[in-house]
């Protein structure tokens, strides 16, 4: 190993700053997965019958898949078999009262935890222009600006609350984009999901603020299985953000979420994620979150648009392909992604764009950064169906390597059944050279700043797509996650 590579190595040392644990008494289900647990979750949530039935169908389907050993094995990731009976499927901070609470009823410890995470929920301190739903382990603990949004007909509430107050909407849309039978983890989620956010934007309404859900895993040995459903009715617009963190623990924890988006005629949904789950111990690779997530949007109406932007810096393993079904004519799907795999992290992420309607367009910009022993895989599918006359896709997939022990892999799948389709694919792989860092240093820029400047330049196309506050956050996060990567 040359001196230069050693130089880069020492820059990749960084400490996970969100690893604290909040001491709260919690109400947890016993470990293990069976019909009884599912009934327990459903009862705790006071769910109508149709929900329990749906969960049960999902669970039976999952059992079948498990028997067939149908846990997906095709991804370019390695991990020890998960013992699904060794997980707590429901854990909630104890409260005297069931159902949604006002802020002064929320455990101050939890409020403090969110404040530490930079998401103050107090009325005086809360973020301007951002409504927040705070999900702590299996439940939503607080949602801000709900009343203000309700005035213009926007529903922004915990999923469990939506099931109570808007069962007709839940019934209509739940599983309409990601059915429980979609895949192994989607089936698991459908059976045991406990909370998440529910959003409905009525016809012609442009949501005046960013809506955000902040997911926090706190309890040990538990998994987080949330479900988010966003419906943008005709001619509406919403920008939604999600953030996530977890304590530092040596045992892997499972996070298997499902997100469904529906955009009707002329509606637009912009969905941004900054994922910062605990990535595991930097030296041994022990612990960390398994982030196995199914996210899909359906551009159901004409001229509708769904845009996914993700910055994935955390989690021991990421398995995630936010996709768009372009059903309405002239609909648009976008995917902008930065995925970082540092230390022993593994990420297999990308998207699927399924073109069904006429003149549908999709853009994919994927940036993978690998450092330490990290392995980063881009997996993307572009499918043009026979009906999709005049469909267009542009894919750009860039990998950046830092150091000489990491890897970048690319698996693009393209399938076109209509000869009028125009598909472009560009890919590049580059290495953060010591040359680049030295060049910036020679101009007086300190080494750490030099690395973050290079990384930010590499990610610029994606960061530009994030809402302002998030873009700043994402840049900071990337430089912290790579702190010490070049010594």
């Amino acid at each position, binding site marked *: 190993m040359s001196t*230069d590579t050693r130089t880069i190595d020492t820059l990749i040392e960084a400490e996970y700053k969100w690893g604290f644990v909040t001491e709260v008494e919690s109400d947890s289900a016993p470990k293990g997965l069976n019909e009884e647990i599912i009934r327990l979750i459903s009862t705790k949530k006071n769910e109508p019958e149709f929900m329990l039935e749906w969960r049960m169908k999902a669970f039976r389907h999952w059992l079948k898949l498990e028997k067939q050993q149908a846990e997906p094995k095709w991804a370019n990731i390695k991990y020890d078999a998960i013992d699904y009976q060794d997980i707590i499927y429901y854990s909630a901070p104890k409260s005297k009262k069931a159902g949604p609470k006002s802020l002064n009823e929320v455990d101050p410890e939890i409020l403090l935890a969110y404040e530490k995470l930079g998401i103050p929920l107090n009325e005086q301190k809360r973020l301007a222009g951002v409504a927040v739903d705070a999900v702590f382990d299996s439940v939503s603990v607080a949602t801000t600006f709900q009343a203000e949004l309700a005035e213009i007909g926007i529903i922004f509430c915990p999923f469990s609350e939506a099931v109570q107050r808007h069962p007709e909407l839940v019934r209509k849309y739940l599983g309409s984009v990601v059915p429980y039978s979609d895949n192994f983890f989607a089936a698991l989620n459908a059976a045991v999901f406990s909370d998440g956010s529910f959003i409905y934007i009525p016809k012609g309404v442009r949501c005046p603020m960013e809506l955000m859900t902040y997911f926090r895993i706190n309890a040990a040995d538990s998994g987080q299985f949330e479900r988010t459903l966003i419906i943008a009715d005709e001619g509406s617009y919403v920008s939604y953000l999600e953030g996530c963190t977890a304590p530092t623990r040596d045992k892997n924890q499972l996070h298997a979420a499902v997100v469904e988006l529906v955009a009707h005629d002329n509606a637009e949904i912009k969905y941004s994620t900054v994922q910062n789950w605990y990535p595991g111990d930097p030296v041994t690779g022990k612990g960390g979150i398994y982030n196995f997530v199914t996210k899909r949007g359906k551009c159901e109406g004409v001229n509708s648009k769904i845009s996914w932007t993700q910055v994935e810096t955390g989690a021991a393993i990421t398995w995630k392909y936010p996709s768009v079904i372009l059903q309405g004519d002239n609909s648009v799907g976008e995917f902008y992604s930065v995925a970082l795999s540092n230390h022993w992290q593994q990420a297999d992420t990308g998207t699927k764009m399924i073109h069904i309607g006429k003149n549908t367009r999709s853009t994919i910009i994927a940036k993978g950064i690998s450092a330490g022993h990290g392995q980063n895989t881009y997996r993307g599918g572009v499918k043009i169906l026979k009906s999709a006359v005049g469909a267009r896709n542009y894919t750009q997939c860039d990998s950046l390597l830092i150091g000489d022990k990491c890897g970048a892999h690319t698996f693009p799948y393209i399938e076109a059944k209509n000869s009028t389709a125009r598909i472009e694919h560009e890919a590049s792989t580059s290495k953060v050279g010591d*040359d680049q860092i030295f060049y*910036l240093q*020679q*101009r*007086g820029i300190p080494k750490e*700043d030099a690395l973050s400047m290079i990384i930010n330049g590499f990610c*610029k*196309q994606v960061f530009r797509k994030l809402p302002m506050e998030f873009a700043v956050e994402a840049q900071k996060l990337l430089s912290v996650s790579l702190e010490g990567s070049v010594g």
Partner: protein
Amino acid sequence: MAMLEIRNLHVKIENREILKGLNLKVNAGEVHSIMGPNGSGKSTLAQVLARRESYLVTEGEVLLDGKDLLAMKPEDAACEGVFMAFQYPIEIAGISNAYFLRAALNAVRKYHGRKEMDAMDFLPFYKGKMKLLEVDESFMTRSVNEGFSGGEKKRNEILQMALLEPKLAILDETDSGLDIDALRIVANGVNAMRSPDRATIVITHYQRLLDYIVPDFVHVLVDGRIVKSGGKELALTLEEQGYVGVETEARALAVAV
């Protein structure tokens, strides 16, 4: 006191000794040219002065205004006023030239405890320098060196030098890959920066550049040592006779030592 004083400098890279006892004194206001055949150690000298870490100094010392240059990190050497125009300028995607140059300028200002320059102050400042190097306005919004022609890259190096106003400027084969027009523009830029407070080291293979940037001293580097020094006319002699003559001399010298 000389601005730069190099004493008995020995440098190794990957266990091979490249510089074998180099001595050089450069005073403020002077322009020195270092010439020599391929592999004689010219670029190594430039890299060591710019504090590239992969070069191992095994013996000797380098003083910059009396300070130990070899103890400095590359960014600190840069902030102390050492500037190297790269032989092969590096490309950085997604970072605009303007952003990069302001970050560099502010890093240097911060080091000296001076106020950082905001984008509004920076604009008129760099516009003046751009004129000097005959570069187009679009230069500043383009990513650092990305998609630049060879000539544009070299002009960008001198533009950076003009903005950072270093104490000691080292031009590492700045003439390589330049056509005659670009050479003239680059040389004009360098000449405009000649001042009694600044020293310049011009590393080159060919005498051609020295027609435009006229040096006060010419040194011939052969096999890791300076074997001959003289005035600007030495460059002409070399151009006519090649390095063979001085190489023979050097070998004779080495045997004598």
